[in-house]
């Protein structure tokens, strides 16, 4: 630093008073540090400007995604056959679900527009429509289409599996179990028991169910990777419900082995780490490239706990994202909002309102636990009573939820 500043100190500048080396150093150090901090933290924002790449060979996009290949006339009329259109829609649905990217489901919806409102559509179209609606949390519409398929083909494994899932998520556990049991004679025992085990996360001893599922998995041969991933995910949830976080973590890791970039798995695993207060592990787990609300929420919770300076920036980003979602007006973000007001900017009333709104159509274990925590914070006994009544009705045996409700009972 001295060498850097000395030329100026000894320069030919005809200053009447020479600035001492200490003074130069003081000023230089002060501003260099502040500039460095700003440059390191601002993430390019300071100089964010449109630009022209210098080289024509610079790759600006790599096509790792499917592109629309439907041919149209100049007047916009499609010339591709219905079969081609449906096949393209299928590609988009598969890719959108695999990458958890709702845009591709929307593109598929666009392709299926001529049949979107048709009651009497082909089974393929009804199945794609149900998949898209279910992903968009429109469970009633999805169940309607799936029931339509099953009315024609009662032994359709995929439709049964999907409807069982829709029933389970919406809290209709008996109906879900009923569909799972129908799979017994129609598909692989591992698929059937995995379906049943998902319902038993709440309604049976989860630890015992997990042991049975583990046994079945080890006895099965030639299990495809995607099924292994699903089974490990179910096992992780069963162990989490049984309050056995070490085992749950092992299975989340195994599931992630088969799909390392699954936003769903990363989110669930991060939530487990948050309950364990392993903040640094949370930050290490969440890839910086993922910027969905759920991932941002987990990152903000961990940053806040570690009192990192980036927390303020993260909160601003989340608020901006919620504003954008609100302006769009088509995405249900009540679960994200509930978590935000519960853990990040505590506002018990808003947390319970959003958690309750989410619970109206999603009653998985994490949704129920979120509502219990929010209602407890807001001291909302009406909501707590409603949740307790529902848990009694379904015969809840999840130690995780039993502990949560016990904590509430003891605190009141």
């Amino acid at each position, binding site marked *: 630093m001295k060498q850097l500043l000395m030329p100026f100190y000894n320069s030919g500048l005809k200053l009447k008073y020479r600035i001492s080396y200490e003074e130069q150093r003081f000023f230089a150090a002060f501003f260099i540090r502040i500039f460095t901090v700003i440059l390191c933290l601002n993430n390019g924002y300071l100089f964010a400007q449109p630009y022209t790449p210098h080289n024509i060979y610079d790759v600006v996009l790599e096509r790792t995604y499917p592109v629309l290949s439907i041919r149209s006339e100049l007047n916009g009329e499609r010339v591709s056959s219905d079969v081609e259109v449906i096949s393209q829609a299928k590609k988009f649905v598969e890719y959108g679900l695999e990458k*958890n990217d709702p845009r591709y489901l929307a593109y598929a919806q666009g392709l299926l527009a001529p049949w979107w409102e048709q009651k009497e559509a082909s089974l393929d179209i009804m199945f794609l429509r149900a998949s898209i609606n279910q992903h968009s949390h429109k469970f009633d519409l999805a169940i309607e289409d799936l029931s339509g398929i099953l009315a024609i083909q009662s032994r359709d494994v995929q439709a049964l599996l999907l409807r069982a899932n829709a029933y389970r998520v919406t809290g209709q556990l008996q109906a879900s179990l009923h569909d799972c049991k129908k799979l017994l004679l129609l598909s692989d025992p591992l698929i059937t028991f995995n379906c049943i085990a998902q319902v038993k996360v709440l309604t049976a001893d989860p630890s015992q169910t997990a042991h049975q599922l583990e046994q079945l998995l080890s006895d099965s041969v030639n299990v495809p990777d995607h099924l292994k991933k699903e089974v490990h995910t179910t096992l992780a949830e069963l162990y989490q419900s049984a309050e056995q976080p070490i085992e749950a973590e092992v299975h989340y890791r195994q599931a992630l082995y088969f799909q390392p970039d699954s936003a769903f798995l990363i989110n669930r695993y991060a939530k487990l780490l948050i309950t364990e207060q392993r903040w640094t592990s949370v930050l290490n787990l969440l890839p910086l490239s993922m910027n969905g609300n759920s991932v941002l929420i987990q990152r903000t919770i961990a940053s806040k706990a570690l009192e990192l300076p980036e927390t303020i920036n993260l909160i601003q980003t989340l608020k901006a994202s919620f504003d954008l979602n609100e302006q769009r007006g088509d995405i249900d973000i009540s679960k994200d909002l509930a978590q935000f007001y519960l853990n990040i900017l505590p506002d018990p009333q808003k947390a319970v309102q959003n958690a309750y709104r989410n619970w109206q159509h999603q009653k998985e274990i994490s949704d129920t636990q979120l509502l219990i925590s929010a209602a407890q914070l807001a001291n909302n006994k009406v909501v707590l009573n409603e949740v307790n009544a529902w848990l009694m009705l379904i015969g809840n045996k999840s130690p995780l939820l039993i502990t949560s409700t016990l904590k509430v009972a003891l605190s009141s």
Partner: protein
Amino acid sequence: MKKRLIIAFLVCYGPFALCHQTSDSFLSINKGISQLSDGKWQEEWQGEWRVPLDVLDTLYGNELALDQNSDQKITWGELSLSEALLTNRLLSTLLIRHDGQPCRVKKTDFQLDDLNTGLYLYLPFIIKCQQSGPGITIDYQLFFEQDPLHRGFLKFTDQQTTSSFVFSPDSPSVSLKNHSNSVFAGYFQINSFIQYIREGIWHIWIGLDHILFLLALLIPSVFIFKGGQRQTHERFKPMLKDVLTVVTGFTLAHSITLTLATLKVISLPGVLVETVIAISVALSGLMMFFARFYRYRWQVAGGFGLIHGFGFASVLVDLNLPLASFSTSLFAFNIGVEIGQLAIVSAMLPIMYLMRKNWFYHRVVLPFSACVMVTYGTIWMFERGLNIQLV
């Protein structure tokens, strides 16, 4: 059948962690001015459109043959080769009308823009309308056919207001009122001249950063560094000379950049300008602690004054000067800034002169003001540089 099974599994596990990626585009339309070949100024609407590049490729990539060598990689060269097709395709989905008459959209070279949500194609364009009247209508159809969840976020800025609108398949059109009819009048009135002077005064008075910077340079004016020590001016004249030197340095510097930036000869990113202005406040506050630097205040005023000029210019761009009297308006605004500045100096100078030997000025006013400048400057620096809210 196997594919359907995978879909069923993916739906079961996928939907409950919506990523909220969207295909949204961001359209901004501002009123601006441009110089004609005959030297006259002309009013025009300027547009900026940011469209996510991967969405563009997914939905239009095949149709426009963006990947010309089919290597599944799109280079800047390939994109540039398709520029005409691509911009025509995009602009065909945007219809701008003024009082029912379609406006002509003149495109300029596209670029890329890295936003938090990904890489965007940045398409600047100029809108030329035949009619001059109060209403502008925008019809937006981008991606609606292919993506029912697509939204177009519009920010519309005219002389006095900024409004926003979200285009969706259910509301693909918006009529916006142009609030600046007077701008089309084409002649300059004395009232407008006074109005722009007022705007100039108002801007410096409400611009706390400019005021703090000026005060940080003015407060030490009662002192002189002599014989290695801080001494007080005995007479008013040398103190006035000192103040005038600083103020002139600041005025000359910001007038130059204010004019150049308003004429769009030089353009700097707004965030950079605002951050450096904050730094100038912190640095000038810090300088107040060191009497030996007092003699260099006019250089500091001149140097940072250049950046403050860009700050003033950003306001002027928002004001959208009437084109028929562009130079007169610019002059009026600058006069306003100087009047506002002079008012501050006139109010401060006698107080400073009277208090110059008082211990309170030496021990409280000077260090306390310096602390305020450094604190505010540093906070703004972080807030503006990092786009965060600290206070």
